């Protein structure tokens, strides 16, 4: 294509994207087709990838195909393996995309579809994808070093130690909040509970199959696993239809929480080939399949967005979670826009696989744009629901009561018309006793996904099967994070305990393994249980703050690396998202701790409750305070290094 033709093409892409944004922003009083949202997304990603990621690749890092990557340099056939970039992309995407980008946008839909859309697109192109890409580049230039390692080396031991502690703290909150999503999706749902429970023996069977029956036939085993999962779905349906069995598996949130804790503990102490590895294969497979199916379904149906562009809840009075648009829209949606956790992947397995430096652009930047697209699809699925239904599912019982009549009255009085019959019928159609106050995002997303799948694949029928399929898919996603995270957390903890007593640090000494596993499970278990009693809406913002804090650490490392390359001007690439993240995390944590409104402020809330709830509020407040302090420490430590590098004479920051 000639240069002129290319220019015309990209001007065209920009114009179409701008037009789609205008349609979204100016829509008032009528429904907008999801086609506009998809068009705006694709145009934004295309322009970001073509121009901005090229700028970072060529000007900032000067990626060079002739330079040796760690995978080539240290090729050992194990950790360091030069791999085709299509495979690295798939592997990286399967590692970064979890339940986060599905849940966050669903919750943020309480502000309307516009804030979430803008943040997902702008945040990914200028923030999240930049972070993933820059950290990946920095790591491949440093023999595949980890984020904490780079923080220690580039900034200092304080920042390095803080980063390691922050990672542990974030993993605890992450696992707790995701476990709470499962608990809220499965409570009083025998169908979902039976289906998810059956996935565990299925994984164990696959482990045994791969070990003894047909060793190493992974594709075969995974195909059997998928068939068994479908069987589990029907088994759940049968269980829910039989009154005695249904009663047995209608579990309370506390029972579910303890079951998840036992499961996490088991995953941490059992050999990985038995449970973790086969379940991981299965869930990576299902993940890619379902994401593709959802994309195809949305593309062909182009459902209208029934949620308004903006709701009145941007003032902070919303029932789904407390807090106003700024900063809480940007905290609620972390994954899909900017997710600090990705920096661990970009400095973990991925840099050890890249064959050539320029591959970092499609993998790092492109991988994040793909995740952002998944989040956009989740947003579409949530906003395609009738707003009344969305709020009835996602508002706590304290706001809408416990009967369809009270819920319909409350939600309609907020301006989102819905009748008790609508709520009753929908619950019946999806095969649940009730959908009221099923907070956590998963059930409303499952209703949205089931509607799309059912219309696309089965002509509007079989809604109950699709709903439970979606619940199983989300829960499987979450179990992957929960079990692998618990095991990794156990290893980090053993590493720390090894400093106190070397015996406890031995990863093969059983008492040490059990102690560290129990400690780590207890760590997230405390937050899970207080989340059940205290509600979902405190825990999710805490997770968002933690995740964005890790992003701030990663961007501080990125900025330091770019400044040390002698390119302080280009450090704006990471400095801009860094400033924004520090602004939102510090505003959000201060509001979360000190706000006078008891719905938002933890300390104010502690004054309105009694007993263990007071402890829960104080605990959350301490955690939020810890996150705030760690981000400030790392950022100030980094600024000190920047000034020293830029002004080596010592006028600005005298150094010994």
């Amino acid at each position, binding site marked *: 294509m000639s240069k002129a033709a290319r220019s015309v093409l990209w001007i065209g892409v920009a114009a179409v994207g701008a037009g789609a944004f205008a349609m979204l922003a100016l829509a008032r009083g009528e429904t907008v087709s999801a086609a506009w949202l998809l068009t705006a997304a694709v145009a934004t990603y295309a322009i970001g990838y073509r121009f901005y990621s090229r700028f970072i690749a060529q000007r900032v890092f000067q990626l060079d195909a002739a330079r040796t990557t760690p995978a080539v340099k240290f090729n050992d056939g194990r950790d360091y393996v030069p791999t085709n970039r299509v495979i690295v992309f798939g592997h990286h995407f399967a590692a970064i995309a979890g339940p986060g980008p599905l849940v966050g946008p669903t919750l943020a839909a309480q502000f309307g579809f516009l804030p979430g859309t803008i943040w997902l697109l702008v945040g990914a192109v200028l923030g999240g994808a930049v972070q993933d890409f820059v950290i990946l580049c920095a790591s491949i230039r440093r023999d595949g070093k980890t984020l904490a390692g780079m923080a220690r080396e580039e900034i200092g031991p304080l920042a390095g130690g803080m980063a390691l502690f922050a990672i542990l703290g974030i993993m605890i909150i992450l696992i707790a909040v995701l476990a709470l999503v499962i608990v809220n999706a499965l409570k009083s749902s025998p169908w979902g509970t039976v289906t998810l429970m059956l996935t565990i023996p299925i994984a164990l069977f696959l482990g045994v199959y791969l070990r003894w029956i047909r060793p190493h036939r992974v*594709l075969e085993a995974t195909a059997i696993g998928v068939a068994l999962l479908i069987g589990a779905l029907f088994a759940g349906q049968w269980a829910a239809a039989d009154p005695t069995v249904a009663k047995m598996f209608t579990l309370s949130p506390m029972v579910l929480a303890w079951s998840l804790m036992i499961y996490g503990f088991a995953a941490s102490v059992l050999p990985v080939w038995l449970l973790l590895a086969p379940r991981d294969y299965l869930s990576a497979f299902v993940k890619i399949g379902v994401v593709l199916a959802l994309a195809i379904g949305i593309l062909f149906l182009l459902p209208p967005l029934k949620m308004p562009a903006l709701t009145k809840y941007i003032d902070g009075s919303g029932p789904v979670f407390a807090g106003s648009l700024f900063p809480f829209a940007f905290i609620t949606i972390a994954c899909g826009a900017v997710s600090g956790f990705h920096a661990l992947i970009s400095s973990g397995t991925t840099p050890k696989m890249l064959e050539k430096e320029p591959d970092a652009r499609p993998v790092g930047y492109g991988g994040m744009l793909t995740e952002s697209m998944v989040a956009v699809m989740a947003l579409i699925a949530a906003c395609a629901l009738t707003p009344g239904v969305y709020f009835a599912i996602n508002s706590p019982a304290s706001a809408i009561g416990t009967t369809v009549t009270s819920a319909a009255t409350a939600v309609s009085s907020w301006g989102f018309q819905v009748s008790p019959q609508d709520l009753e019928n929908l619950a019946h159609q999806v095969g649940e006793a009730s959908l009221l106050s099923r907070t956590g995002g998963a059930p409303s997303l499952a209703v949205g996904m089931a509607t799309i799948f059912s219309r696309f694949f089965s002509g509007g029928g079989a809604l109950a099967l699709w709903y439970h399929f979606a619940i199983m898919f989300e829960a499987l996603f979450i179990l992957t994070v929960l079990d692998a995270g618990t095991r990794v957390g156990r290893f980090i903890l053993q590493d720390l305990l090894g400093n106190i007593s070397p015996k406890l640090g031995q990863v093969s000494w059983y008492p040490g393994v059990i102690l560290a596993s129990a400690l780590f499970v207890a760590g997230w278990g405390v937050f899970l249980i207080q989340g059940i009693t205290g509600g979902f809406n405190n825990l999710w913002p805490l997770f968002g703050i933690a995740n964005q804090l890790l992003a701030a650490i990663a961007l501080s490392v990125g900025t330091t690396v770019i400044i040390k390359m002698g390119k302080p001007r280009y450090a704006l690439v990471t400095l801009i998202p860094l400033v924004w993240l520090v602004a939102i995390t510090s505003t959000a944590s201060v509001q979360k701790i000190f706000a006078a409104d008891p719905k938002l402020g933890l300390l104010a809330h502690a004054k309105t409750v009694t007993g263990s709830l007071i402890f829960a509020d104080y605990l959350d407040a301490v955690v939020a305070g810890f996150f705030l302090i760690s981000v400030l420490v790392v950022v100030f430590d980094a600024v000190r290094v920047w000034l020293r590098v830029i002004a080596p004479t010592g006028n600005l920051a005298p150094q010994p």
Partner: protein
Amino acid sequence: MTLLSSLLRIIGVPDYEGYVTHMRERHPEQPVLSRDDFMRERLSARYERPGARCC
């Protein structure tokens, strides 16, 4: 590289053939792990540190 083996790599199955080729070419003097041992060693290494799975 066939489509199926690419799919295996993407879902995270360790590459034993690649490992054997690597050892033969680069370290012919060293012993090569059996498929069982290689798989067990790779899988347990994966779940020991952050960097393989995310939210």
